């Protein structure tokens, strides 16, 4: 057959890669590398298998030696590990990325306007676009944020929006992370390591650079300063060394050249937030806090918090310190509000249509939806509305009868806490397994920075991969790994100039 001939002449063996029953990021349905992946696939196929595996091992060692680790709780011996890392990158074609970037900016703008609206006029409820009962306005954390006006009207300064690709290759939004999304340090460090792994491929391709992220982050944070001074003092605030993302907190502070503080380093004094230094107290203007709202200020939120700064919310409300992200963004960061984001985009952005669609979502709080969900449990993925990290998810087709019965019961008892979505066939990408390459499912978390005057999207983002065969769960807490994400044939000027070759 002619078609087979094409496969032989153009195709790349890639260690007998077996095509998946899903959209593959690097290989098309006829077994040929997609245009943007040709250089990479040719290079991999040219490498002897041992050499290829040696590079994988070298990359893992480089990450471990640089201490790119996360903390594992409850294991005294080896409390630090690297997240499994796979050297075969995921590739996104430049024009496709440009469309995604526009869609991400559109979405984050609408979410930001929604948060501002919820804490002030509440126009969207009055217009009947979102029923007010779906928003937990009375939760104490959110009540403390009412009427606050953060600098520039920006609430979600640093966000991560999780995307997946379905069977026909359409990108869809899976989840919005507006609180403290983590993982960007893995993007930056795995890029550094991959430049050593595939230097020649970097030479040939124009992979859009991620190197200026720390610079953009610092600009974003400095733009929030409420105090009129030349060089605002920015700090990164961490819960401490035992937090699972501590490495990232330290890394970002180091890359920006700003102090990494803990709650005990800060004090409210004379109406300002100040830090304890070797020469006395010193004022802080902007806090990039990697600690949840609930722990931020024991006087306003949880009184038992040992991690926060007593009185910091008063200084914040008085406009004398900026907090990023602003307290209260979490109100728009759950799986129920998620379902309404397309409506928000139309409402706040003059009737624009969403550029990146949602995954269709049933809200069990709605009578019709709930009946649909209960009737089709075996085909759906059911999720608790207010959990993160893949917790509590029941995948219908893989669940036992008993699990289905339990979740049905839970839905009837507390319908507002449950949503359901059709089972997606997540896209795959070639991943090293048992010395060969096999398709594994991936998602993508791009990072968006929104300052007082400009918005920046990091090209690519964190690709998370489900390392277990057939698994759809990519969370690092559940055995997921990561890959570098390349946006190639860079059409965007300015970026390509910087992305040059390997060191």
């Amino acid at each position, binding site marked *: 057959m002619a078609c087979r001939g094409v496969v032989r002449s153009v195709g790349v063996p890639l260690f007998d890669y077996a095509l998946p029953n899903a959209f593959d990021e690097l290989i098309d349905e006829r077994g040929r590398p997609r245009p943007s992946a040709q250089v990479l696939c040719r290079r991999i196929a040219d490498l002897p298998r041992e050499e290829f595996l040696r590079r994988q091992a070298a990359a893992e060692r480089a990450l471990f*030696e*640089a*201490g790119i680790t996360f903390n594992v709780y409850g294991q005294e011996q080896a409390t630090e590990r690297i997240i499994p890392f796979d050297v075969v990158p995921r590739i996104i074609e430049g024009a496709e990325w440009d469309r995604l970037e526009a869609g991400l900016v559109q979405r984050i703008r609408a979410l930001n306007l929604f948060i501002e609206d919820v804490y002030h006029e509440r126009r969207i409820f009055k217009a009947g676009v979102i029923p007010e009962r779906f928003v937990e306005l009375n939760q104490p954390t959110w009540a403390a944020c009412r009427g606050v006006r953060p600098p520039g009207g920006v609430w979600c300064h640093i966000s991560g929006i999780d995307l997946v690709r379905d069977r026909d290759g359409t990108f869809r939004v899976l989840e919005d992370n507006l609180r403290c999304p983590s993982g960007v340090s893995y993007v930056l460090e795995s890029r550094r390591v991959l430049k050593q792994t595939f230097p020649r491929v970097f030479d040939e391709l124009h992979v859009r650079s991620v190197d200026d992220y720390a610079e953009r982050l610092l600009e974003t944070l400095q733009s929030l300063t409420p105090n009129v001074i030349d060089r605002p003092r920015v700090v*990164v605030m961490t819960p401490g*060394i035992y937090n699972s993302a501590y*490495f990232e907190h*330290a*890394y970002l*502070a*180091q890359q920006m050249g*700003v*102090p*990494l*503080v*803990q709650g*005990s*380093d800060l*004090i*409210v*004094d*004379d*109406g*300002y937030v100040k*830090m*304890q*230094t*070797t*020469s*006395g*107290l*010193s004022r802080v203007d902007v806090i990039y806090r990697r600690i949840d709202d609930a722990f931020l200020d024991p*006087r306003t939120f949880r009184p038992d918090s040992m991690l926060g700064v*007593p*009185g910091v919310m*008063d*200084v914040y409300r*008085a406009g*004398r310190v900026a907090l990023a992200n602003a307290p209260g963004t979490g109100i728009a960061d759950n799986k129920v509000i998620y379902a309404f984001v397309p409506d928000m985009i139309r409402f706040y952005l003059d009737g624009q249509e969403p550029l990146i669609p949602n995954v269709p979502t049933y809200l069990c709080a709605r009578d019709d939806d709930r009946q649909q969900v209960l009737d089709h449990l075996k085909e759906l993925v059911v999720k608790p509305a207010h959990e993160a990290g893949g917790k509590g998810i029941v995948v219908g087709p893989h669940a036992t009868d008993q699990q289905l019965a339990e979740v049905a019961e839970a839905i009837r008892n507390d319908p507002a806490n449950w949503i359901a979505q059709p089972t997606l066939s997540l896209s795959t990408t070639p991943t090293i397994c048992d010395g060969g390459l096999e398709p594994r499912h991936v998602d993508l978390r791009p990072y968006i920075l929104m300052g007082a005057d400009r918005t920046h999207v990091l090209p690519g983002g964190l690709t998370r991969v489900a390392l277990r065969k057939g698994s759809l769960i990519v969370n690092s807490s559940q055995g997921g790994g990561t890959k570098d994400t390349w946006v190639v044939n860079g059409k965007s000027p300015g970026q390509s100039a910087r992305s040059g070759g390997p060191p």
Partner: protein
Amino acid sequence: MNRTMLSRVANAIYWMSRYAERAENAARFVDVNLQLTLDRSVGLEPQWRPLIDVSGDLEAYEQRRDNFDRDTVLEFLTLDADNPNSILSSVAVARENARTVRETITAEMWEQINSLYHLMRRSTPADLDHLFFQRIKRSAMLFAAIADNSQSRGLAWSFGHLGRMIERADKTSRILDVKYYLLLPSAEDVGTNVDTIQWRALLHSTDALEMYRQQHGTIAPGRVAGFLMLDRAFPRSMAFCLDRAGRCLDDLATGDRRHATARLRRQHGRLQSELRYHTIDEIITGGLHEYIDSFQQRLNAIDDAVHDAFFRPINAEPTDAAGNPDAAPQLQA
């Protein structure tokens, strides 16, 4: 140059540096005895108990060990995770402190202390020979060299260097003190061949042999002690360490904490002057061990003063942003 630094960070850098230096000195300390065992032909039985006596850990040792043979003492001083002053524990504390200030120190410093830590974690009692302690010593020296050659001369470097100098002054005094203990059971050896070999091993363990020879020629006990205590040019002598610590204080003593800083300068200046103007004959006449003992106590007082001058949190003004006079946070001292 950045003229201010978080007290917690400065504290962590100071202790990171002290513990790295402590690990290095512990390796030297053990190595001097291992070197002596190689010279048994001269009729000297190597003694391991004085190493425990001088480190101040005798009580902890006797609770869990019932003899003072080579392997037991070596294991306790090197790999025992329950001994807070073992090399393994010191390296672990240095690394843990480094981990809390990774954003402030350089990546090369972190990678070096991290690799030393993993080396210690991999080691077993069977590894504990002369070459092993050489490796530990070199690895810790490399850490100090990286700190010196990758950091700007700002606050982070000064606090690290201050910690290293204070720790080193203390440890050189302890290594010298070992000699006192070694001689106790056999006072008749003084001035004999055995005695010379011991002093030579002592110089060797502080990497002082070549520098001593260039300065003084033959080995004479009084001159060796004088060299390690009072020489102003040798980088492991107590006087040198006090001088360098003083230079760090010159760079650090600015800002709002004047009272505590003045007290620190006073204490440091007095001790530094004594080392500068005492002669070794006066010290030996008054008792070497007694002198070293008092030196160590005064060094501890300087360490306390460093804490007061730079690390201790300042309490807030008794009002907050909302004007509430109550509940001003009392940070722990």
